[in-house]
Protein backbone atom coordinates (compact mmCIF):
# COMPACT_ATOMS: atom_id res chain seq x y z
CA UNK A 1 0.00 0.00 0.00
CA UNK A 2 2.11 2.81 -1.21
CA UNK A 3 1.14 6.20 0.07
CA UNK A 4 0.58 9.31 -2.00
CA UNK A 5 -0.50 7.57 -5.17
CA UNK A 6 -2.76 10.05 -6.83
CA UNK A 7 -6.33 8.71 -6.83
CA UNK A 8 -8.55 8.78 -9.88
CA UNK A 9 -10.86 11.70 -10.49
CA UNK A 10 -14.56 11.08 -10.00
CA UNK A 11 -17.02 12.91 -12.16
CA UNK A 12 -20.76 12.81 -12.04
CA UNK A 13 -22.61 14.49 -14.88
CA UNK A 14 -26.30 15.40 -14.93
CA UNK A 15 -27.23 12.37 -12.84
CA UNK A 16 -30.99 11.89 -12.58
CA UNK A 17 -33.01 9.11 -11.04
CA UNK A 18 -36.75 8.82 -11.15
CA UNK A 19 -38.94 6.19 -9.52
CA UNK A 20 -42.17 6.33 -11.43
CA UNK A 21 -43.23 9.95 -11.34
CA UNK A 22 -41.02 10.70 -8.37
CA UNK A 23 -37.64 12.30 -9.05
CA UNK A 24 -35.18 11.27 -6.35
CA UNK A 25 -32.05 12.72 -7.86
CA UNK A 26 -32.36 15.69 -10.16
CA UNK A 27 -29.54 16.71 -12.48
CA UNK A 28 -26.66 16.32 -10.04
CA UNK A 29 -23.19 17.14 -11.38
CA UNK A 30 -19.88 17.49 -9.62
CA UNK A 31 -16.24 16.72 -10.14
CA UNK A 32 -13.91 15.42 -7.47
CA UNK A 33 -10.17 15.60 -8.07
CA UNK A 34 -7.94 12.65 -7.27
CA UNK A 35 -7.14 11.90 -3.63
CA UNK A 36 -9.69 14.34 -2.25
CA UNK A 37 -12.59 13.62 0.05
CA UNK A 38 -16.04 14.90 -0.84
CA UNK A 39 -18.98 14.55 1.50
CA UNK A 40 -22.55 14.52 0.26
CA UNK A 41 -24.48 16.13 3.07
CA UNK A 42 -28.24 16.28 3.33
CA UNK A 43 -31.29 15.24 5.31
CA UNK A 44 -32.79 11.80 4.71
CA UNK A 45 -34.62 11.68 1.42
CA UNK A 46 -32.37 14.32 -0.10
CA UNK A 47 -31.08 11.87 -2.71
CA UNK A 48 -27.56 11.59 -1.36
CA UNK A 49 -27.64 7.84 -0.81
CA UNK A 50 -29.28 7.30 -4.19
CA UNK A 51 -26.49 9.31 -5.80
CA UNK A 52 -23.91 7.17 -4.05
CA UNK A 53 -25.64 3.93 -5.06
CA UNK A 54 -25.64 5.10 -8.67
CA UNK A 55 -21.89 5.63 -8.51
CA UNK A 56 -21.39 2.21 -6.91
CA UNK A 57 -23.47 0.67 -9.68
CA UNK A 58 -26.14 -0.87 -7.44
CA UNK A 59 -28.86 0.90 -9.37
CA UNK A 60 -28.95 2.23 -12.88
CA UNK A 61 -29.40 5.95 -13.34
CA UNK A 62 -32.38 7.17 -15.34
CA UNK A 63 -30.07 9.67 -17.03
CA UNK A 64 -26.59 11.08 -16.64
CA UNK A 65 -23.10 9.66 -16.53
CA UNK A 66 -20.52 8.54 -14.01
CA UNK A 67 -16.84 8.85 -14.93
CA UNK A 68 -13.84 7.56 -13.02
CA UNK A 69 -10.43 8.70 -14.21
CA UNK A 70 -12.12 10.10 -17.29
CA UNK A 71 -13.61 6.70 -18.16
CA UNK A 72 -17.37 6.35 -18.52
CA UNK A 73 -18.55 3.55 -16.21
CA UNK A 74 -22.26 4.39 -16.21
CA UNK A 75 -23.31 1.05 -17.71
CA UNK A 76 -20.67 -1.11 -16.09
CA UNK A 77 -21.91 -3.71 -13.53
CA UNK A 78 -20.99 -3.06 -9.92
CA UNK A 79 -18.47 -5.89 -9.67
CA UNK A 80 -16.40 -4.53 -12.55
CA UNK A 81 -16.19 -0.94 -11.35
CA UNK A 82 -13.27 -1.21 -8.97
CA UNK A 83 -14.97 1.02 -6.42
CA UNK A 84 -14.67 0.23 -2.71
CA UNK A 85 -17.78 0.70 -0.58
CA UNK A 86 -18.10 1.04 3.19
CA UNK A 87 -21.70 0.25 4.11
CA UNK A 88 -23.80 1.85 6.76
CA UNK A 89 -24.09 -1.34 8.82
CA UNK A 90 -20.68 -2.47 7.47
CA UNK A 91 -22.11 -5.50 5.61
CA UNK A 92 -19.33 -7.75 6.85
CA UNK A 93 -19.91 -11.33 5.76
CA UNK A 94 -21.05 -12.95 9.00
CA UNK A 95 -19.84 -16.44 8.11
CA UNK A 96 -16.29 -15.38 7.24
CA UNK A 97 -13.50 -14.43 9.60
CA UNK A 98 -12.00 -10.96 9.54
CA UNK A 99 -9.13 -12.29 7.45
CA UNK A 100 -11.42 -13.97 4.94
CA UNK A 101 -13.58 -10.86 4.74
CA UNK A 102 -10.60 -8.71 3.86
CA UNK A 103 -9.19 -11.34 1.49
CA UNK A 104 -12.51 -11.59 -0.39
CA UNK A 105 -11.93 -8.84 -2.98
CA UNK A 106 -8.41 -10.12 -3.62
CA UNK A 107 -9.68 -13.67 -4.13
CA UNK A 108 -12.22 -12.29 -6.59
CA UNK A 109 -9.33 -10.79 -8.52
CA UNK A 110 -7.55 -14.16 -8.47
CA UNK A 111 -4.37 -12.80 -6.93
CA UNK A 112 -1.71 -15.34 -5.97
CA UNK A 113 -2.13 -16.65 -2.43
CA UNK A 114 1.15 -15.10 -1.22
CA UNK A 115 0.14 -11.71 -2.50
CA UNK A 116 -3.27 -12.01 -0.85
CA UNK A 117 -1.70 -12.89 2.49
CA UNK A 118 0.70 -9.99 2.28
CA UNK A 119 -1.90 -7.43 1.39
CA UNK A 120 -4.45 -8.62 3.93
CA UNK A 121 -1.73 -8.39 6.55
CA UNK A 122 -0.90 -4.85 5.51
CA UNK A 123 -4.53 -3.77 5.45
CA UNK A 124 -5.19 -5.20 8.90
CA UNK A 125 -2.06 -3.52 10.23
CA UNK A 126 -3.27 -0.26 8.78
CA UNK A 127 -6.45 -0.43 10.87
CA UNK A 128 -4.62 -2.04 13.81
CA UNK A 129 -6.59 -5.29 13.78
CA UNK A 130 -3.79 -7.85 13.20
CA UNK A 131 -4.72 -9.63 16.41
CA UNK A 132 -8.34 -10.03 15.41
CA UNK A 133 -7.78 -11.70 12.03
CA UNK A 134 -9.31 -15.03 13.01
CA UNK A 135 -12.40 -13.61 14.71
CA UNK A 136 -15.87 -13.57 13.22
CA UNK A 137 -17.48 -10.16 12.72
CA UNK A 138 -20.01 -10.70 15.51
CA UNK A 139 -17.15 -11.13 17.97
CA UNK A 140 -15.96 -7.57 17.32
CA UNK A 141 -17.10 -4.25 18.74
CA UNK A 142 -18.82 -1.69 16.53
CA UNK A 143 -15.66 0.35 16.07
CA UNK A 144 -13.65 -2.74 15.16
CA UNK A 145 -16.25 -3.86 12.66
CA UNK A 146 -16.16 -0.45 11.08
CA UNK A 147 -12.36 -0.71 10.73
CA UNK A 148 -12.65 -4.15 9.12
CA UNK A 149 -15.16 -2.71 6.68
CA UNK A 150 -12.70 0.02 5.88
CA UNK A 151 -9.80 -2.39 5.43
CA UNK A 152 -11.92 -4.59 3.16
CA UNK A 153 -12.97 -1.63 1.05
CA UNK A 154 -9.44 -0.39 0.42
CA UNK A 155 -7.38 -3.59 0.36
CA UNK A 156 -7.83 -4.04 -3.40
CA UNK A 157 -6.72 -0.49 -4.11
CA UNK A 158 -9.97 0.67 -5.63
CA UNK A 159 -9.92 3.76 -7.76
CA UNK A 160 -12.62 5.39 -5.67
CA UNK A 161 -13.89 4.76 -2.13
CA UNK A 162 -17.53 5.31 -1.24
CA UNK A 163 -18.77 5.52 2.34
CA UNK A 164 -22.47 5.42 3.21
CA UNK A 165 -23.02 7.02 6.62
CA UNK A 166 -19.78 5.34 7.70
CA UNK A 167 -20.08 6.39 11.33
CA UNK A 168 -23.85 6.30 11.67
CA UNK A 169 -23.90 3.13 13.75
CA UNK A 170 -21.32 4.29 16.31
CA UNK A 171 -21.85 6.25 19.52
CA UNK A 172 -20.82 9.90 19.74
CA UNK A 173 -17.39 9.48 21.35
CA UNK A 174 -16.26 6.75 18.99
CA UNK A 175 -17.62 8.72 16.06
CA UNK A 176 -15.36 11.62 16.85
CA UNK A 177 -12.24 9.42 17.05
CA UNK A 178 -13.15 7.59 13.88
CA UNK A 179 -13.68 10.83 11.97
CA UNK A 180 -10.04 11.68 12.49
CA UNK A 181 -8.88 8.13 11.89
CA UNK A 182 -10.74 7.75 8.61
CA UNK A 183 -9.50 11.12 7.43
CA UNK A 184 -5.89 10.15 8.20
CA UNK A 185 -6.26 6.80 6.48
CA UNK A 186 -7.78 8.43 3.44
CA UNK A 187 -4.93 10.90 3.20
CA UNK A 188 -2.28 8.22 3.75
CA UNK A 189 -3.72 6.10 0.97
CA UNK A 190 -4.43 9.10 -1.21
CA UNK A 191 -7.69 7.52 -2.28
CA UNK A 192 -10.43 9.56 -3.92
CA UNK A 193 -13.34 9.28 -1.50
CA UNK A 194 -17.01 10.13 -1.51
CA UNK A 195 -18.78 9.98 1.82
CA UNK A 196 -22.48 10.34 2.50
CA UNK A 197 -23.83 11.68 5.77
CA UNK A 198 -26.58 13.69 7.41
CA UNK A 199 -24.23 14.80 10.19
CA UNK A 200 -22.99 18.32 9.47
CA UNK A 201 -20.12 18.16 11.96
CA UNK A 202 -18.84 14.97 10.40
CA UNK A 203 -19.02 16.60 6.97
CA UNK A 204 -17.14 19.71 8.07
CA UNK A 205 -14.46 17.82 10.01
CA UNK A 206 -13.65 15.13 7.46
CA UNK A 207 -13.96 16.69 4.06
CA UNK A 208 -11.99 18.63 1.49
CA UNK A 209 -15.26 19.44 -0.18
CA UNK A 210 -18.83 19.31 0.98
CA UNK A 211 -21.81 19.06 -1.35
CA UNK A 212 -25.14 19.89 0.26
CA UNK A 213 -28.15 18.13 -1.21
CA UNK A 214 -31.84 18.67 -0.71
CA UNK A 215 -34.90 17.48 -2.60
CA UNK A 216 -32.70 15.53 -5.01
CA UNK A 217 -30.80 18.63 -6.04
CA UNK A 218 -27.30 19.84 -5.35
CA UNK A 219 -27.66 23.04 -3.32
CA UNK A 220 -24.04 24.08 -2.97
CA UNK A 221 -20.61 22.56 -3.27
CA UNK A 222 -17.48 24.00 -1.70
CA UNK A 223 -14.92 23.72 1.06
CA UNK A 224 -16.32 23.41 4.59
CA UNK A 225 -15.22 27.00 5.26
CA UNK A 226 -16.94 28.39 2.18
CA UNK A 227 -20.14 26.57 2.95
CA UNK A 228 -20.28 27.71 6.53
CA UNK A 229 -19.25 31.27 5.93
CA UNK A 230 -20.89 31.87 2.58
CA UNK A 231 -23.98 29.68 2.37
CA UNK A 232 -25.50 30.00 -1.06
CA UNK A 233 -29.11 29.81 0.04
CA UNK A 234 -31.43 29.52 2.96
CA UNK A 235 -31.35 25.71 3.02
CA UNK A 236 -27.57 25.52 3.27
CA UNK A 237 -27.48 28.28 5.89
CA UNK A 238 -30.10 26.49 7.93
CA UNK A 239 -28.71 22.96 7.53
CA UNK A 240 -25.10 23.79 8.36
CA UNK A 241 -25.02 25.00 11.93
CA UNK A 242 -27.60 27.10 13.72
CA UNK A 243 -28.59 30.31 12.00
CA UNK A 244 -30.64 33.43 12.49
CA UNK A 245 -32.48 33.87 9.24
CA UNK A 246 -34.43 37.10 8.94
CA UNK A 247 -36.82 38.01 6.16
CA UNK A 248 -37.42 41.60 5.11
CA UNK A 249 -36.53 44.08 2.41
CA UNK A 250 -33.74 46.30 1.19
CA UNK A 251 -33.88 49.83 2.50
CA UNK A 252 -31.51 52.77 2.60
CA UNK A 253 -30.03 53.90 5.89
CA UNK A 254 -29.60 57.49 7.03
CA UNK A 255 -26.44 57.85 4.97
CA UNK A 256 -28.12 56.51 1.86
CA UNK A 257 -26.24 53.20 1.94
CA UNK A 258 -28.30 50.08 1.33
CA UNK A 259 -29.27 48.29 4.48
CA UNK A 260 -31.62 45.49 5.47
CA UNK A 261 -34.89 46.04 7.29
CA UNK A 262 -36.70 43.01 8.67
CA UNK A 263 -40.48 42.75 8.47
CA UNK A 264 -40.57 43.58 12.18
CA UNK A 265 -38.37 46.58 11.80
CA UNK A 266 -34.86 45.51 12.73
CA UNK A 267 -32.39 47.44 10.62
CA UNK A 268 -28.87 46.23 9.90
CA UNK A 269 -26.12 46.84 7.38
CA UNK A 270 -25.33 43.69 5.40
CA UNK A 271 -22.75 42.06 3.18
CA UNK A 272 -23.90 40.98 -0.26
CA UNK A 273 -20.79 38.83 -0.81
CA UNK A 274 -20.30 38.26 -4.51
CA UNK A 275 -23.93 39.06 -5.23
CA UNK A 276 -25.00 42.43 -6.56
CA UNK A 277 -26.92 44.61 -4.13
CA UNK A 278 -30.62 44.62 -4.99
CA UNK A 279 -32.54 47.86 -5.35
CA UNK A 280 -34.23 49.40 -2.37
CA UNK A 281 -37.63 47.86 -1.75
CA UNK A 282 -36.65 44.38 -2.99
CA UNK A 283 -37.50 41.55 -0.62
CA UNK A 284 -34.44 40.02 1.00
CA UNK A 285 -33.19 37.34 3.37
CA UNK A 286 -30.18 37.63 5.65
CA UNK A 287 -28.40 35.10 7.82
CA UNK A 288 -26.46 35.85 11.01
CA UNK A 289 -24.59 33.06 12.79
CA UNK A 290 -25.37 32.97 16.55
CA UNK A 291 -21.67 33.00 17.45
CA UNK A 292 -21.32 36.31 15.60
CA UNK A 293 -23.91 38.00 17.77
CA UNK A 294 -22.13 39.80 20.60
CA UNK A 295 -24.06 40.62 23.74
CA UNK A 296 -23.29 43.76 25.69
CA UNK A 297 -24.91 43.50 29.13
CA UNK A 298 -24.06 47.01 30.38
CA UNK A 299 -27.18 49.17 30.90
CA UNK A 300 -25.44 52.14 29.31
CA UNK A 301 -24.48 50.23 26.20
CA UNK A 302 -27.47 51.32 24.17
CA UNK A 303 -26.23 54.85 24.10
CA UNK A 304 -22.83 53.83 22.69
CA UNK A 305 -23.23 53.72 18.93
CA UNK A 306 -25.03 51.18 16.72
CA UNK A 307 -26.61 48.10 18.24
CA UNK A 308 -29.89 46.44 18.79
CA UNK A 309 -31.50 46.82 22.20
CA UNK A 310 -32.98 43.49 23.21
CA UNK A 311 -34.55 41.66 26.13
CA UNK A 312 -33.17 38.25 27.09
CA UNK A 313 -36.08 35.85 26.70
CA UNK A 314 -34.27 32.61 27.37
CA UNK A 315 -30.92 31.18 28.46
CA UNK A 316 -29.66 27.64 27.88
CA UNK A 317 -26.51 26.46 29.58
CA UNK A 318 -24.63 23.87 27.47
CA UNK A 319 -21.37 23.53 29.39
CA UNK A 320 -18.75 25.12 27.20
CA UNK A 321 -21.20 27.54 25.59
CA UNK A 322 -24.32 29.47 26.50
CA UNK A 323 -27.26 30.03 24.24
CA UNK A 324 -29.33 33.18 24.56
CA UNK A 325 -32.66 33.90 23.00
CA UNK A 326 -33.03 37.63 22.49
CA UNK A 327 -36.09 39.62 21.55
CA UNK A 328 -35.37 42.82 19.67
CA UNK A 329 -37.60 45.87 20.02
CA UNK A 330 -39.67 45.09 16.93
CA UNK A 331 -40.15 41.51 18.10
CA UNK A 332 -37.45 39.81 15.99
CA UNK A 333 -36.06 36.71 17.71
CA UNK A 334 -32.28 36.44 17.64
CA UNK A 335 -30.23 33.47 18.82
CA UNK A 336 -26.81 34.24 20.27
CA UNK A 337 -24.07 31.86 21.29
CA UNK A 338 -21.37 32.88 23.75
CA UNK A 339 -18.42 31.00 25.18
CA UNK A 340 -18.83 30.33 28.87
CA UNK A 341 -16.80 32.92 30.78
CA UNK A 342 -17.56 35.84 28.48
CA UNK A 343 -19.15 39.12 29.67
CA UNK A 344 -22.64 37.99 28.93
CA UNK A 345 -22.45 34.85 31.06
CA UNK A 346 -24.25 36.45 33.98
CA UNK A 347 -27.26 37.64 31.95
CA UNK A 348 -30.63 36.41 33.19
CA UNK A 349 -33.99 36.13 31.58
CA UNK A 350 -35.61 39.56 31.43
CA UNK A 351 -32.32 41.51 31.38
CA UNK A 352 -32.02 44.36 28.92
CA UNK A 353 -28.95 44.03 26.71
CA UNK A 354 -27.58 45.26 23.41
CA UNK A 355 -26.83 42.83 20.57
CA UNK A 356 -24.24 43.69 17.96
CA UNK A 357 -22.76 42.08 14.87
CA UNK A 358 -20.39 43.16 12.19
CA UNK A 359 -21.64 44.13 8.78
CA UNK A 360 -19.78 41.23 7.12
CA UNK A 361 -21.44 38.75 9.48
CA UNK A 362 -24.89 39.71 8.25
CA UNK A 363 -24.96 37.88 4.95
CA UNK A 364 -27.46 38.47 2.19
CA UNK A 365 -29.12 35.35 0.77
CA UNK A 366 -31.17 35.13 -2.39
CA UNK A 367 -34.78 35.72 -1.35
Amino acid sequence: MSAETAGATLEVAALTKTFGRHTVVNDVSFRLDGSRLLTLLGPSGSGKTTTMRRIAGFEEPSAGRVLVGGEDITRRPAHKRDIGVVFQQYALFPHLTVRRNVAYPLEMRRLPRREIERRVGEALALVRLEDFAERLPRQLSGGQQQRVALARAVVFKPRVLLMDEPLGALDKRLRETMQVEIRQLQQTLGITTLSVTHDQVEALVMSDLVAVMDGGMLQQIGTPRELYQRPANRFVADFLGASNILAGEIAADAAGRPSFRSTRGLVSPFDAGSRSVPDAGATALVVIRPEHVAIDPRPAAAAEGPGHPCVVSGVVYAGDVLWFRLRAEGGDEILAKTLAGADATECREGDRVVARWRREDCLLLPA
Partner: protein
Amino acid sequence: MIGTRLRRAVVWLLGGSVLAFLVVPVVAVVPMSFSSSDILELIPTRPGLVQYERFFASPDWMQAMALSFQVAIGTMVAATVLGILAALALWRLPERVRRPLEGMLILPRIVPSIVFAIAIYRLFLDVGMVGTVPSLVVAHTVMAIPFVVVMVGSALRSFDHSLDEASRSLGAGPVTTFFRITLPQIRLAILGGALFAFNVSFDEVVVTLFVSGVRSKTLPVKVWDAIQHEITPILPAISVLVIAVTLLVLVPALLIRRRAA
Protein backbone atom coordinates in the same frame (compact mmCIF):
# COMPACT_ATOMS: atom_id res chain seq x y z
CA MET B 1 -55.41 -13.40 45.62
CA ILE B 2 -57.69 -16.42 45.75
CA GLY B 3 -59.49 -14.85 42.81
CA THR B 4 -56.28 -14.74 40.80
CA ARG B 5 -55.39 -18.34 41.59
CA LEU B 6 -58.87 -19.52 40.79
CA ARG B 7 -58.74 -17.74 37.44
CA ARG B 8 -55.39 -19.33 36.62
CA ALA B 9 -56.82 -22.73 37.54
CA VAL B 10 -59.76 -22.22 35.19
CA VAL B 11 -57.45 -21.07 32.37
CA TRP B 12 -55.24 -24.12 32.84
CA LEU B 13 -58.21 -26.48 33.05
CA LEU B 14 -59.84 -25.20 29.85
CA GLY B 15 -56.68 -24.68 27.81
CA GLY B 16 -55.07 -27.83 29.20
CA SER B 17 -58.06 -29.98 28.16
CA VAL B 18 -57.83 -28.66 24.62
CA LEU B 19 -54.13 -29.42 24.43
CA ALA B 20 -54.73 -32.87 25.90
CA PHE B 21 -57.37 -33.45 23.23
CA LEU B 22 -54.64 -32.74 20.66
CA VAL B 23 -51.88 -34.82 22.19
CA VAL B 24 -53.49 -37.84 23.87
CA PRO B 25 -54.65 -39.67 20.72
CA VAL B 26 -51.18 -39.45 19.24
CA VAL B 27 -49.62 -40.82 22.39
CA ALA B 28 -52.28 -43.51 22.90
CA VAL B 29 -51.25 -45.31 19.76
CA VAL B 30 -47.82 -46.15 21.18
CA PRO B 31 -48.92 -48.74 23.79
CA MET B 32 -51.52 -50.04 21.32
CA SER B 33 -48.76 -50.91 18.88
CA PHE B 34 -47.17 -53.40 21.29
CA SER B 35 -50.25 -55.60 21.44
CA SER B 36 -49.99 -59.24 20.40
CA SER B 37 -53.71 -59.70 20.20
CA ASP B 38 -55.83 -59.27 17.09
CA ILE B 39 -58.29 -56.91 18.77
CA LEU B 40 -57.38 -53.32 19.60
CA GLU B 41 -56.54 -52.66 23.22
CA LEU B 42 -55.10 -49.58 24.83
CA ILE B 43 -53.02 -51.50 27.36
CA PRO B 44 -51.81 -54.73 25.73
CA THR B 45 -52.60 -57.85 27.77
CA ARG B 46 -49.62 -59.65 26.24
CA PRO B 47 -47.14 -56.98 25.20
CA GLY B 48 -44.73 -57.80 22.40
CA LEU B 49 -43.25 -56.77 19.11
CA VAL B 50 -45.42 -59.10 17.04
CA GLN B 51 -47.00 -56.34 14.97
CA TYR B 52 -43.66 -54.75 14.15
CA GLU B 53 -42.24 -58.12 13.12
CA ARG B 54 -45.27 -58.73 10.95
CA PHE B 55 -44.74 -55.38 9.25
CA PHE B 56 -41.08 -55.87 8.51
CA ALA B 57 -41.65 -59.46 7.37
CA SER B 58 -44.30 -58.47 4.83
CA PRO B 59 -42.91 -57.91 1.33
CA ASP B 60 -46.04 -55.90 0.47
CA TRP B 61 -45.51 -53.41 3.26
CA MET B 62 -41.79 -53.24 2.65
CA GLN B 63 -42.36 -52.50 -0.99
CA ALA B 64 -44.78 -49.71 -0.10
CA MET B 65 -42.32 -48.23 2.35
CA ALA B 66 -39.48 -48.38 -0.17
CA LEU B 67 -41.66 -46.63 -2.73
CA SER B 68 -42.64 -43.97 -0.20
CA PHE B 69 -39.02 -43.22 0.56
CA GLN B 70 -38.14 -43.18 -3.12
CA VAL B 71 -40.92 -40.72 -3.96
CA ALA B 72 -40.27 -38.57 -0.89
CA ILE B 73 -36.58 -38.22 -1.68
CA GLY B 74 -37.34 -37.41 -5.32
CA THR B 75 -39.88 -34.83 -4.21
CA MET B 76 -37.46 -33.35 -1.72
CA VAL B 77 -34.83 -32.80 -4.40
CA ALA B 78 -37.18 -31.45 -7.06
CA ALA B 79 -39.18 -29.20 -4.74
CA THR B 80 -36.05 -27.83 -3.10
CA VAL B 81 -34.38 -26.90 -6.37
CA LEU B 82 -37.51 -25.33 -7.87
CA GLY B 83 -38.43 -23.68 -4.58
CA ILE B 84 -35.00 -22.08 -4.17
CA LEU B 85 -35.11 -20.72 -7.70
CA ALA B 86 -38.56 -19.25 -7.11
CA ALA B 87 -37.63 -17.76 -3.73
CA LEU B 88 -34.49 -16.17 -5.17
CA ALA B 89 -36.43 -14.67 -8.06
CA LEU B 90 -39.16 -13.33 -5.78
CA TRP B 91 -36.57 -11.80 -3.53
CA ARG B 92 -35.13 -9.83 -6.41
CA LEU B 93 -38.45 -8.55 -7.69
CA PRO B 94 -40.08 -5.29 -6.67
CA GLU B 95 -42.91 -5.56 -4.15
CA ARG B 96 -45.68 -4.90 -6.66
CA VAL B 97 -44.69 -7.82 -8.91
CA ARG B 98 -43.66 -10.05 -6.04
CA ARG B 99 -46.94 -10.15 -4.15
CA PRO B 100 -49.12 -11.68 -6.87
CA LEU B 101 -46.39 -14.15 -7.87
CA GLU B 102 -45.92 -15.16 -4.28
CA GLY B 103 -49.66 -15.69 -4.01
CA MET B 104 -49.55 -17.97 -7.04
CA LEU B 105 -46.65 -20.02 -5.71
CA ILE B 106 -48.49 -20.56 -2.42
CA LEU B 107 -51.68 -21.61 -4.22
CA PRO B 108 -51.00 -25.38 -4.19
CA ARG B 109 -51.40 -25.17 -0.39
CA ILE B 110 -54.81 -23.54 -0.78
CA VAL B 111 -56.48 -25.49 -3.57
CA PRO B 112 -58.32 -28.46 -1.99
CA SER B 113 -56.35 -31.70 -2.43
CA ILE B 114 -59.28 -33.44 -4.08
CA VAL B 115 -59.49 -30.79 -6.79
CA PHE B 116 -55.79 -30.96 -7.55
CA ALA B 117 -55.97 -34.75 -7.31
CA ILE B 118 -58.53 -35.16 -10.08
CA ALA B 119 -56.85 -32.47 -12.18
CA ILE B 120 -53.44 -34.12 -12.15
CA TYR B 121 -55.00 -37.59 -12.34
CA ARG B 122 -56.66 -36.61 -15.60
CA LEU B 123 -53.38 -35.24 -16.99
CA PHE B 124 -51.47 -38.42 -16.12
CA LEU B 125 -54.24 -40.61 -17.50
CA ASP B 126 -54.03 -38.74 -20.79
CA VAL B 127 -50.28 -39.30 -21.09
CA GLY B 128 -50.39 -42.83 -19.63
CA MET B 129 -48.25 -42.03 -16.61
CA VAL B 130 -50.58 -43.09 -13.80
CA GLY B 131 -48.84 -45.34 -11.30
CA THR B 132 -45.29 -44.35 -12.24
CA VAL B 133 -42.75 -43.00 -9.80
CA PRO B 134 -42.14 -39.82 -11.82
CA SER B 135 -45.85 -39.00 -11.80
CA LEU B 136 -45.94 -39.31 -8.01
CA VAL B 137 -42.84 -37.19 -7.65
CA VAL B 138 -44.28 -34.50 -9.92
CA ALA B 139 -47.62 -34.39 -8.09
CA HIS B 140 -45.96 -34.25 -4.67
CA THR B 141 -43.47 -31.64 -5.83
CA VAL B 142 -46.30 -29.29 -6.79
CA MET B 143 -47.63 -29.58 -3.25
CA ALA B 144 -44.23 -29.27 -1.58
CA ILE B 145 -42.93 -26.21 -3.45
CA PRO B 146 -44.83 -23.68 -1.29
CA PHE B 147 -43.08 -24.96 1.85
CA VAL B 148 -39.65 -24.45 0.34
CA VAL B 149 -40.57 -21.06 -1.12
CA VAL B 150 -41.88 -19.80 2.20
CA MET B 151 -38.97 -21.08 4.27
CA VAL B 152 -36.21 -19.97 1.92
CA GLY B 153 -38.10 -16.76 1.20
CA SER B 154 -38.29 -15.79 4.84
CA ALA B 155 -34.59 -16.54 5.28
CA LEU B 156 -33.82 -14.33 2.28
CA ARG B 157 -36.00 -11.54 3.64
CA SER B 158 -34.00 -11.48 6.83
CA PHE B 159 -30.81 -11.66 4.78
CA ASP B 160 -29.12 -8.28 4.67
CA HIS B 161 -29.31 -6.96 1.12
CA SER B 162 -26.16 -4.94 1.62
CA LEU B 163 -24.11 -8.16 1.96
CA ASP B 164 -25.04 -8.88 -1.61
CA GLU B 165 -24.07 -5.39 -2.67
CA ALA B 166 -20.87 -5.53 -0.64
CA SER B 167 -19.87 -8.69 -2.46
CA ARG B 168 -20.53 -7.09 -5.82
CA SER B 169 -18.63 -3.94 -4.93
CA LEU B 170 -15.68 -6.13 -3.96
CA GLY B 171 -15.58 -7.66 -7.42
CA ALA B 172 -17.76 -10.78 -7.25
CA GLY B 173 -20.25 -11.43 -10.04
CA PRO B 174 -23.84 -12.52 -9.32
CA VAL B 175 -23.11 -16.25 -9.49
CA THR B 176 -20.04 -16.08 -7.25
CA THR B 177 -21.97 -13.87 -4.86
CA PHE B 178 -24.76 -16.42 -4.66
CA PHE B 179 -22.50 -19.37 -3.87
CA ARG B 180 -20.06 -17.59 -1.57
CA ILE B 181 -22.30 -15.16 0.30
CA THR B 182 -26.03 -15.78 -0.14
CA LEU B 183 -26.05 -19.57 -0.02
CA PRO B 184 -24.09 -19.92 3.25
CA GLN B 185 -26.59 -17.55 4.88
CA ILE B 186 -29.71 -19.47 3.82
CA ARG B 187 -28.29 -22.99 4.07
CA LEU B 188 -30.31 -23.90 7.15
CA ALA B 189 -33.55 -22.63 5.70
CA ILE B 190 -32.94 -24.70 2.58
CA LEU B 191 -32.38 -27.78 4.72
CA GLY B 192 -35.57 -27.00 6.65
CA GLY B 193 -37.56 -26.54 3.46
CA ALA B 194 -36.18 -29.80 2.08
CA LEU B 195 -37.24 -31.68 5.21
CA PHE B 196 -40.73 -30.21 5.04
CA ALA B 197 -40.92 -31.22 1.39
CA PHE B 198 -39.91 -34.77 2.32
CA ASN B 199 -42.63 -34.84 4.94
CA VAL B 200 -45.31 -33.54 2.57
CA SER B 201 -44.59 -36.38 0.19
CA PHE B 202 -44.18 -39.06 2.84
CA ASP B 203 -47.63 -38.26 4.29
CA GLU B 204 -49.58 -37.41 1.17
CA VAL B 205 -52.61 -39.60 0.62
CA VAL B 206 -55.43 -37.88 -1.28
CA VAL B 207 -53.58 -37.06 -4.49
CA THR B 208 -51.56 -40.25 -4.23
CA LEU B 209 -54.75 -42.33 -4.05
CA PHE B 210 -55.54 -41.22 -7.58
CA VAL B 211 -52.09 -40.96 -9.14
CA SER B 212 -50.70 -44.23 -7.77
CA GLY B 213 -53.33 -46.29 -9.57
CA VAL B 214 -53.31 -49.96 -8.63
CA ARG B 215 -49.70 -50.58 -9.49
CA SER B 216 -47.57 -48.53 -7.16
CA LYS B 217 -48.94 -47.98 -3.68
CA THR B 218 -47.09 -45.78 -1.23
CA LEU B 219 -47.21 -46.47 2.49
CA PRO B 220 -50.12 -44.04 3.14
CA VAL B 221 -52.13 -45.56 0.29
CA LYS B 222 -51.53 -49.07 1.65
CA VAL B 223 -52.60 -47.84 5.07
CA TRP B 224 -55.71 -46.29 3.51
CA ASP B 225 -56.58 -49.59 1.87
CA ALA B 226 -55.99 -51.47 5.09
CA ILE B 227 -58.27 -49.10 6.98
CA GLN B 228 -60.98 -49.41 4.35
CA HIS B 229 -60.96 -53.19 4.42
CA GLU B 230 -60.59 -53.91 8.10
CA ILE B 231 -58.81 -52.36 11.01
CA THR B 232 -55.89 -54.73 11.20
CA PRO B 233 -53.87 -54.76 14.40
CA ILE B 234 -50.74 -54.08 12.41
CA LEU B 235 -51.79 -50.47 11.85
CA PRO B 236 -50.87 -49.07 15.29
CA ALA B 237 -47.35 -50.36 14.75
CA ILE B 238 -47.18 -48.71 11.33
CA SER B 239 -48.61 -45.53 12.83
CA VAL B 240 -45.83 -45.46 15.39
CA LEU B 241 -43.23 -46.01 12.68
CA VAL B 242 -44.67 -43.25 10.48
CA ILE B 243 -44.80 -40.90 13.47
CA ALA B 244 -41.19 -41.77 14.26
CA VAL B 245 -40.05 -41.00 10.72
CA THR B 246 -42.04 -37.74 10.74
CA LEU B 247 -40.53 -36.67 14.04
CA LEU B 248 -37.05 -37.57 12.84
CA VAL B 249 -37.55 -35.34 9.82
CA LEU B 250 -39.56 -32.59 11.46
CA VAL B 251 -37.73 -31.89 14.67
CA PRO B 252 -34.68 -30.48 12.88
CA ALA B 253 -36.95 -28.68 10.40
CA LEU B 254 -38.93 -27.06 13.21
CA LEU B 255 -35.78 -26.07 15.05
CA ILE B 256 -34.51 -24.42 11.88
CA ARG B 257 -37.79 -22.61 11.39
CA ARG B 258 -37.64 -21.28 14.93
CA ARG B 259 -34.08 -20.10 14.49
CA ALA B 260 -35.08 -18.34 11.29
CA ALA B 261 -38.05 -16.60 12.93
